[in-house]
């Protein structure tokens, strides 16, 4: 007699303690694409989701990591960055580590002093990058600083005026960061001791976080920097392909999205739009061929969701924001819908969690025919520019003053 599926899962969970706690150890979640295999209820019994806990946090836009029952994020206090670890169940502080990170005289921090970048967990370590591009490695259990590097000083990394904003990524034993001119475009350090591993290219900087993809069996690091889009070998930094975009695509914040059909989706606001590149290997070389360009979808900073042949995202910069569905193969807009501010989308199986900058949270389904909002509530005060983190049915959110956990189990 075969054991039931539930018993099997329980045995599997008991034998692998880490599976008891779903992980969100980097920008964008498990696969860096804001997609998780979690079931959220499409409706709430009361006016909004049940609040599990809420507490003051402090300034900053860093998103929230979750790992083994703990949360990690960053905030700002005076001239210091504060890396903080919280109990995921209660929100209580487990440890805080501060380091000096004064705002440079030539920075413009009217949008806030940051930190903007989201930390990265790799093994028992957590990596953080400050607004002024100081990279630190901490012991994730204690918060003890293991090593640090000042990348403005050491490598000429730019602070982009408003502060460094991309989030680091791990590959094997490396931690990889995008920097940009006048420093190198991409750099990698050994996770263990912070030794310099490689540097590559000379692209202009951006706030867009890199992603790791696999093209025809080969891992590649995809970066969107200035008006350059490129794929690199994450072990060496060697250029695999490069696609130059027009100068209008120079200010890019949103994260690229990779599809199984080998289509890379990029979007930027400020006068540009969205583009799809198809990656192919021809005669042993990788090529990126632009499939289409459309000004009808201009994602400023939000995360997008891809469902089937469609990418859905929040389009708009200074003007009105629309939720837009666009066919990733043709670039044709399927629909656009008003009603939300600039928003992050998080795909949880068939449902999409929407969090807009006004602090409105919604559960919706997206289809080529249109958008159906099942539940909506105000959960944060504006400005909620930080994407939410979903672990199981618990959604962690923050704005520039509070952090909270809400139950999306219905």
């Amino acid at each position, binding site marked *: 007699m075969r054991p039931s599926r539930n018993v099997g899962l329980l045995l599997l969970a008991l034998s692998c303690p880490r599976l008891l706690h779903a992980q969100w150890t980097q920008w964008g979640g498990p696969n860096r694409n804001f997609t998780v295999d979690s079931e959220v209820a499409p409706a709430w019994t009361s006016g909004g989701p049940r609040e599990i806990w809420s507490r003051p946090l402090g300034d900053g836009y860093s998103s929230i990591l979750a790992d083994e029952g703990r949360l990690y994020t960053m905030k700002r206090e005076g001239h210091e960055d504060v890396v903080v670890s919280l109990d995921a169940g209660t929100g209580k502080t487990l440890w805080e580590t501060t380091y000096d990170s004064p705002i440079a005289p030539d920075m413009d921090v009217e*949008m806030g002093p940051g930190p903007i970048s989201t930390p990265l967990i790799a093994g028992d370590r957590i990596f953080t990058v400050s607004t002024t591009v100081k990279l630190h490695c901490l012991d994730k259990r204690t918060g003890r600083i293991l090593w640090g590097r000042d990348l403005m000083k050491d490598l000429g990394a730019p602070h982009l005026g408003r502060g460094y904003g991309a989030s680091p990524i791990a590959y094997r034993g490396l931690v990889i960061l995008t920097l940009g001119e006048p420093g190198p475009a991409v750099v990698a350090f050994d996770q263990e001791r912070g030794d310099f591993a490689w540097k590559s290219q000379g692209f202009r900087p951006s706030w867009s976080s890199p992603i790791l993809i696999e093209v025809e069996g080969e891992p590649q690091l995809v970066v969107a920097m200035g008006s350059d889009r490129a794929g690199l070998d994450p072990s060496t930094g060697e250029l695999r392909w490069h696609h130059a975009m027009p100068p209008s695509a120079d200010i890019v914040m949103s994260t690229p999205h990779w599809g199984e059909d080998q289509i890379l989706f990029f979007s930027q606001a400020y*006068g540009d739009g969205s583009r799809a590149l198809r990656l192919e290997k021809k005669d042993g070389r990788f090529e990126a061929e632009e499939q289409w360009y459309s000004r*009808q979808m201009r994602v400023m900073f939000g995360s997008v969701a891809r469902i089937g042949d469609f990418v859905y995202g929040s389009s708009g*910069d*200074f*003007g*009105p924001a629309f939720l837009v569905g666009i066919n990733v193969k043709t670039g044709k*807009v399927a629909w656009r819908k008003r009603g939300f501010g600039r928003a992050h989308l998080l795909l949880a199986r068939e449902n999409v969690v929407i969090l807009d900058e006004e602090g409105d949270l919604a559960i919706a389904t997206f289809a080529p025919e249109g958008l159906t909002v099942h539940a909506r509530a105000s959960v944060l005060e*504006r400005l909620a520019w930080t994407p939410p983190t979903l672990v199981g049915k618990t959604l962690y959110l923050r704005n520039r003053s509070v952090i909270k956990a809400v139950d999306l189990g219905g």
Partner: protein
Amino acid sequence: MSALLFLLAAAAESQVPERSEGGQTLRVSEAELDRGAIYYVQPGGDSQLVVRSEALLQKVTVTTSRMVGYLVAPFDLDEEGVPLLYGGAFRVPVASLETAIEGGDVILSGPDFLDSARHREVTFLVTGVSGVRRTHRDDESARYELNLSGTLTARGVAREISVPASTTFMPSTDRTMARMDGDLLVLEGGFSLALADLGIAPKRQLQDRVPREVGVEVRAILTTVSPDKSIDPREDPVRYRKYLRVITLLRDLDDVVGGYRLARELMTEVWDRPEELERLAAALASTEGIRRRDWNVALEASKRAVELTREEDPRMLSCLALVHHEMGGAASAVAWQRKAVERIDPSKAGALERARATLAWYEEELRRAASP
């Protein structure tokens, strides 16, 4: 006949949307918001409307930069089978029209001309577009010539008119962002208007100074960013719109009673927020175009901002000095500006230099006031 004209006017005016909450644009309907991209007129800056009145004994050029309104264009201009514009509406406050001749503004807004006491705005409702022809297209702009049909309503009289115009669409680029944020649309057009068609019949003594027809030129820059919206994320949008409303009432519509009532209400709301008190006070004291000023609100607000910041913030101190200066209190202006100069961080050379120059100006004013 006159009854019919009145009914026509009432119908046309009722279709022109009311001003928005902040007053710097019009309320766009849900249907229009869903239908296309909204391009909002950006009031302020260049003259948007020029009326040329050329009579035998007098030439007058009437201008305003306080026109508000919007046009609705397709989301995708290249989409086949859609019109270039779906609609639009404009309002021009009569109180904002400037003749640049002595007494001219009063005559223009008086009962014989635009009668602002009964009809405080001239409106235009777009009802159709025809003869669309694309005359230019490159990566950064597309220009179309067209005829814009609509209903012009002034002093309660509605007239159907057709305006030869051009629209130049300029998607946001580095070039356009240097001018203003958002995708831009430049509207240019002109037409002649017989004053008799609006029921204007100048009195005998003005007949040689007012022509039968005036020429009207429109040149407005519209953008997809609503002027009621601040792109500063620190801004509370509700209070920002209320602040705009105050300025709209006082400057654009010359509504002293409503404007200062709202200003006082806003001051109470922001009583513990020095930055917002300072902005309100500075705007009430120095915004150009406010014709009648009640100094009490500006003075109270700026004093409170100084009090909240314990006389330590040079910006608040400078604002209080400005209010005193505008009120004619030269000695107080000098005293408060001197404190502002003393509080400025010496490393901020530019700010210090500007504050000192202002102080020197106030001191000069004080000397002039003291001299016999």
